[in-house]
């Protein structure tokens, strides 16, 4: 299953619902293009909902890091929501779990963004 994203706005935060696989090739490109598009439109509070992402490889991890850095460099914030066990474990062993702000509840995640 390739990756799909859809975006919605909640209280000034752009929630990106992701599903499928974030892997080298199409999955990584879709995530990159989505985040770039949001930034170009001035959306700098981004919550990536990874609840339906069942697989991510090292390229996908790199793409998450790239998105995090790109948003931060523009003065914005990027947080992660609803990690599956697989993605959670990968972020743990790569020590990225402490780099990302990871949430498991959408409402509190939205409130956690700076006003």
């Amino acid at each position: 299953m390739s990756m799909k994203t859809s975006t919605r706005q909640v209280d000034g935060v752009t929630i990106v619902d992701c599903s499928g696989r974030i892997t080298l090739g199409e999955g990584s490109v879709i995530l990159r293009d989505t985040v770039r598009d949001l930034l170009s439109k001035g959306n700098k509070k981004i919550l990536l909902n990874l609840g339906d992402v069942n697989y991510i490889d090292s390229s996908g991890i790199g793409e998450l890091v790239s998105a995090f850095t790109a948003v931060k460099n523009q003065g914005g914030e990027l947080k992660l929501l609803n990690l599956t066990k697989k993605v959670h474990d990968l972020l743990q062993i790569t020590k990225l779990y402490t780099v990302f702000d990871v949430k498991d509840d959408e409402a509190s995640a939205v409130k956690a963004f700076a006003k």
Partner: protein
Amino acid sequence: MTEQRVSYTLDSTLETVNSAEETATKIASEAGFDEEEVMKIAMAVREAAVNAVLHGNAYDPGKKVIVNFERNTRDLVITIRDQGKGMDMSKIPDPLAPENLLKTSGRGIFLIRSFMDEVEISPSQTGTEIKLTKHVHGPAAGGKEASQ
């Protein structure tokens, strides 16, 4: 579990990466590994195949990726060989070092080592070979415990 050995010669494409991963999933499942172990083996194979296609053969259509799967009562051994210029192991940074945490690449070999029991990387001027070994435990070894 009977011994099995299969070999594939594949193009330097993303389809090869997906194919290697799918084959690893199938063979690891048949070998009796549980779902989590199958995922780890398949991911290690995927990462090794990515290295072979991207960094080894650099998508060169004239170069191939050779993938061997071998399973016996003790181990599942996967060998992936490219026809590139050989990997310089000294140039692979530690992805867990604080200064490297926010790098967007360089985690593939680390993940492979994390997921497999043994990893041997043999670079040469005619390509790099990576040998991945996962020990078979419990019922997958035909009812016998694998030797430790």
